[in-house]
C-alpha cells in the first residue's frame, strides 16, 4: 500500500466514523485540526483502522502518534 492509498483509507474511515465528508487527511494533519476528532473518536479510529488493515498498533505507538503521517508510517513499517 502506498502512502496515498493508506491516507485515502484513513480519510474514508474517519469520514464514516464522524459522518463528515468534508474531512481530508494529509500527512501533517493533527487530531486537533479535525472537528470532533476527540480522544474517544481517536480510539474508534484506531479500532476501525486495525480492523480494516488487519494489523495491531502497539500501545506505545497509539500514545505517541502526533500526525496522521506518523500513523501512516507505522502501517508502512508493518507492510515492509
Amino acid at each position, binding site marked *: 500500500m502506498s502512502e496515498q492509498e493508506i491516507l485515502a483509507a484513513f480519510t474514508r*474511515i474517519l469520514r*464514516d*466514523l464522524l*459522518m463528515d465528508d468534508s474531512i481530508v487527511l494529509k500527512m501533517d494533519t493533527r487530531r486537533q485540526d479535525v472537528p470532533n476528532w476527540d480522544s*474517544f473518536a481517536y*480510539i*474508534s479510529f484506531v*479500532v*476501525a483502522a486495525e*480492523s480494516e488493515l488487519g494489523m*495491531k*498498533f502497539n*500501545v506505545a505507538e*497509539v500514545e505517541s502518534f502526533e500526525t496522521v503521517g506518523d500513523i501512516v508510517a507505522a502501517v508502512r513499517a508493518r507492510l515492509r
Partner: protein
Amino acid sequence: MQKEPVAADFSARLKEALATEDGLVRLDALRSLADAAPGYVETIQLDRSLARVPPAAIDARLTRLRLALLSSVTIAQLVPGLRVAALRRGFFLDVFAGGFGQYRHELLDPATHLQSFAPDVVVLSLSARQLIGSIPVEADFEHVERVLKAEVAELQGLWNAARTRFGASVLQQTYLDVYEPLFGSFDRLVAAAPARAVARLNDLLADAASADGIAVLDVARATARDGIDFWFDTARWLQGKMEIAPQAIARYGEMVMRIVAAQRGRSRKCLVLDLDNTLWGGVVGDVGIEGLVLGEGSAVGEAHLELQRYARRLKERGVILAVCSKNEPAIAEQAFARHPEMVLRRDDIACFVANWKDKAENLSAIAEQLNIGLDSLVFVDDNPAERARIRSALPMVAVPELPGDPAGYVRALAEHGYFEAVSFTREDAQRAAAYAANSQREALRGASQSVEEFLRGLQMRVVYGPVGALELERATQLINKTNQFNTTGRRYSAQELALMAADNANITLQFRLSDRLGDSGLVSVMILRAAGPGVRELEIDTWVMSCRVFGRQLEDEAMNIAVECARTRGVEALRARYLPTERNGVISGLFRNLGFEPAGDGEAEGPSVWRLPVAAYAPRRTFIHRGGEPS
C-alpha cells in the same frame, strides 16, 4: 469469531437514506440497514444517522424506551451497539451512559441525574477486576465464598434500588473472565484463582438473579463461545478501561435487546420447518421413505437429525412447531410415521401443512390456525428461492439464511436468538400438548351441529383466585407476552404485580381453564385497581388472555367472576379502558359486548373508556363450570 459480513452496498444505501427528506422513509431505510448485520464502523454510522431522523417519525414507527447502562468501567463505546440493536427490533432507545465507576452512587443516591432520567431498563455491566484483586491467592474456600457472597448481596441491594426507585427491569451482566491463567489447569482447583473465583461469582449471581426475578445478560457465556479475544482487547483496557472491546458492540447490543424484547413479548413463538433437504436429506416424493438420508451413520443424515433434535428441544421448552412443505400430504405424513430414524414425531407438530400451494399462503394459514401473528413465525427452508419468496411476500416472518452444508443448519437457526426467553414455566413445558388438544377441539368443533353443542361437549371448568406467590411467575409472563387479548398493553414486572396483588384496595384474578381434552393452565389475568380514594369503583387496569382459549366464553365467565368479587366488596361500578395497540384490535368491541357503557369521549379508533354499574350487570350465560381441580 469471524467478522460479520456487511452488505456490500451499505455506504450507498446509507447515503441514499440520508438524502431523502421524508423522515419515515429515512427511518425505514435505516432500519433495514440495521438488519444487514452491520460491523463496528457501520454501527456507529447508523447510530449517528438515527440522530438525524425527526422525532415525529421515531414516534410513528418505534417504541421509545429509556435504558440506563451503569458500570464500574468504561461503557460509552457500547451505546451505538445498543441503539442500533434496538432499531432492529422496533425500539428507540434513550440511553443514560453511567459514569466510570459511578454505578453504586447513581443507583443509591436520590440526587443523581439518573433520578430525572427515570429508566425503564437498567443494565449493570460490572468488572470483577477490583474484587479479584482484593482476594489473596492463599485465601481458602470459606474466605473466597464470603467475599463473593458479599458482592452478590450488594448487587441484590442495587437491583432492589433500581426496581423500587424507578420501577425499572434490571439486566445483570455476568462477569467476564479476562484473566490469564495463574497456575494453569490447576486454577480450577484453587478457590482464589481468578478463573475459578469468577466462575463461582457468576454461579452465585445466577442463583440470586433467579431468586429475585432479575434477567441475566450472559456475556460470560458469549465469550466462551466467541473467544475472549473477540470480546476483550488488552490494548483497549489499557487505553480506555474498556472491558468490552469496541468490535463486540454490535453483538453486545443485540444480546441486550433480545432480552429487552423478550420481556415485552416480542420473541418469536413458532418454528416452521420445511421437510425435503431440511428435516431430512433427499426429496421424499422422488426417493421414497427408504431413500431418505437421515441418521444411520451418514454425516449428512446425522446433520439433518441434529436439526430435528434441536427443534424437539425447542418444542420441549414451549416453542410451537409447524411443518410447511411442498409434498403429497400422505407421503409426508408417512415419513413421520414410518422412518425409523425420525426424532420428531407427527404429534410434535402442532400444524402440519403439506401441499403444492405457495408457501407464503401456507404460512399465513399456519399463523391463522395457531392464532398467532405472522411476526411470531420463524421459517427454516433449505431452498433459497423459497426463502426469497417469503422475505419479499411476508417481511414480518423471520427467515434465517441457511448455509449450503446441513452441518450448519442448527447454528444458523440458533444464532439469531429468535426464541429468547426470560422465564420458563409449567405452561411452557406443556404448550405442545395444549396445542395438540386445541387441534382436537377444532376437529370437535367441526363435527358439532352448533357452537353451543361444541362448547357444552367440552365440559369446561374454570378455577380462579387472586394472583398469589404460586401464580406470580406465570401471571407476569402472560401479562408481558400477550399482545392480542390485552386491554391496555401495560407490562408489569413480577415485583410490581406482587405489590398490586398485596394491596387490599385492588382485586387481582387469575383464571385456569380446563376441559375434557386437557388443562390449558393459567390463561387469563385481570387486575382491578381502586379508581381513587373514597371512590367505590374499580378500574380494569390490565386484562390479558392467552389466544389459545379464544372463542371458549372465558371472557364472559371471567367478567361474571369479576363482577361477583366486586359486588362482595361493595363496589358500585367497574371502569375499563381500551388502549389500542398494534395487535389488540381483536378485542376492540370487548367491553361493549360485555355490557359496559361508553364513559368519556373516546374516539372511534382511539382509546376508549367504559363503565359498568355492578347492580345493572346481567351475568353472561356460559358453558363453563366453576371450581374443581383441573384434570
